[in-house]
């Protein structure tokens, strides 16, 4: 299954980019200080606001900091916020949504009410207030806040999917075989939700990165940490756009966009796992097309 999953070019491209970002998040700070010998915070007063050059590969900021060093170091903060937000948000959503869908009755009513409460909360405003309150908490705290307020939408989707799956014939058939409720949930129902869950996870990841960037842009992250959001925020404060200093705000923006694109590409492949028909349809189509091409070539000769 895993090997098949890797066979499409979209998945490979997406996964490659995503893993590169993960590597960057893991090793970035060490790479900066030990290999490139640059620091995200050191001020180079001799070259302020310089465009990309041999000395500073991606130029410098208005106060003379190296943009490349900031970009590499900032990856970790952004990715941690995204990861914490998506792991937390998806876990809550799966737990609440699938339980509500399968259990039904009072349990379902209570969990649905809880979901609706979180759904109607003005999430971003609350995130704004709480992260303002916990200023300096860093990416983990921001990720937790985003996760706690961001799970409700996906939960409703998962619950309704589970509800429809619960009464499908194949679940009924396994139940009439005497299958236990836990195994029905985990083996018969949950695999059909993989597409949903992974889409939620990856969407939540990008959402977390974006929310962190947004909060940092609005000045609600600790001043000492460098993230892609804080870079864009500082670029805005330093009038980078007016001064034509594209090298300051474009790289972090592009990184966020690239991360989002890679995640979407991976999602295409996961869709094929939860719907086996997609992958075989594709393979037989390719085979038929090839055969047709061979036949066509034969008849031309």
């Amino acid at each position, binding site marked *: 299954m895993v090997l098949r999953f890797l066979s499409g070019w979209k998945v490979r491209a997406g996964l490659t980019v995503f893993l590169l970002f993960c590597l960057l998040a893991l090793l970035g700070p060490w790479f900066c200080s030990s290999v490139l010998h640059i620091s995200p915070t050191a001020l180079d007063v001799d070259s302020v606001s310089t465009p990309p050059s041999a000395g500073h590969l991606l130029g410098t900021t208005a106060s003379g900091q190296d943009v490349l060093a900031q970009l590499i170091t900032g990856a970790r903060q952004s990715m941690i916020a995204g990861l914490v937000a998506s792991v937390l948000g998806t876990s809550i959503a799966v737990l609440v949504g699938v339980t509500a869908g399968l259990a039904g009755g009072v349990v379902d009513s209570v969990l649905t009410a809880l979901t609706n409460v979180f759904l109607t909360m003005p999430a971003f405003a609350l995130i704004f207030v709480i992260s303002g309150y916990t200023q300096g908490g860093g990416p983990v705290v921001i990720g937790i806040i985003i996760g706690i307020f961001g799970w409700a939408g996906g939960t409703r989707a998962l619950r309704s999917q589970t509800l429809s799956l619960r009464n*499908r*014939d*194949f*679940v*009924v*058939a*396994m139940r*009439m*075989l*005497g*299958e*236990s*409720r836990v195994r029905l949930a985990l*083996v*018969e129902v949950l*695999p*059909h939700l993989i597409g949903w869950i992974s889409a939620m996870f990856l969407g939540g990841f990008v959402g977390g990165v974006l929310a962190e960037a947004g909060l940092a842009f609005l000045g609600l992250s600790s001043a000492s940490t460098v993230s892609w959001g804080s870079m864009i925020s500082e670029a805005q404060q330093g009038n980078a756009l007016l001064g034509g200093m594209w090298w300051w705000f474009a790289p972090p923006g592009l990184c966020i966009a690239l991360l989002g694109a890679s995640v979407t590409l991976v999602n295409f492949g996961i869709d094929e796992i*939860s719907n*086996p*028909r997609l992958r*075989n349809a594709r393979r037989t189509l390719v085979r038929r097309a090839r055969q047709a091409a061979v036949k066509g070539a034969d008849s031309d000769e």
Partner: protein
Amino acid sequence: MPDPAVLEAVDVSMRFTVRGGLGRTATVRALEHVSLRLHRGRTVALVGESGSGKTTLARLFALMYQPTSGEIRLRGEPVGVRRGSTARAYYSEVQMVLQDPFASLNPMHTVRHNLRRALRLHHFDGDLEERMHELLRRVSLTPTQDFIGKLPHELSGGQRQRVSIARALAVAPKVLLGDEPISMLDVSMRLDLLNLLASLRDEEGLALLYITHDIASARYLAEEICVMYAGQLVEGGPAEQVIQNPQHPYTKLLLEASPDPARTVSAAGQSSFLPIADAGEPPSLIDPPGGCRFHPRCPVAKAECRTAFPARTSAADGHWTNCWLYTSESEAS
């Protein structure tokens, strides 16, 4: 009947409460005082229109609902809705084959997974692999090694239905409930599957409940036919008697509605299909007609048909019906 019933429904009624919008509720009277017995090595066919309650009865036998009144008995012991290991014990004797072979197999699991789960759940101790191949041979999915690793979408409708049957057989049941097992298959596959069911019944002594709306296949497979209309059993008895000498007007209507090759050309060389004047519609079970539920459609309805459901009239050969036509006759004589 020589041996006692393996599985029986005794005076079972089933009502469902449905919730409409704005908190309105309605009661669907799906089954009314139905009794049915299944015997070892015999097939009972349950015939009726869509929505007549056939599937509800099968699901009651499969313990999916608790009947509103009456009870299901396994070898004379009343059984209720259960969970866990007691449910498993029941399902090791009673298995069901569902109507739609395209929905009854999980699209993500192979044939092997389905059979292995069935064997594991019912504590099969022996060579799992060997037993799985044996089951596939039993339902004529050969060569078995070609089929065991297949996913459902790689199989045809008939093959899927065979896998469903193999899965049900894996637990070595005493009773097999077939809920229209052939209605979704190509016509060319149906006879094969009927023959398979018949041989399973004969060789393994299964008690078979065969639910269908196709009275011709019921005649082919079953020793006994029960006719159901709008949740009530209206006629039953040995298959040939019910077909050759239908008593209840609804059974006659059903027989007239089914194409029979032998009847197409009469001696005069004309089509002998009787034009069915106004067959009507099956009634709503939320607000069913009183008395005999068939009376709005019945060509020979009388006054008492509107007020009360008739008592059962039995003939010596085991053929019975619930119809005022015969009740009044027997009272008069």
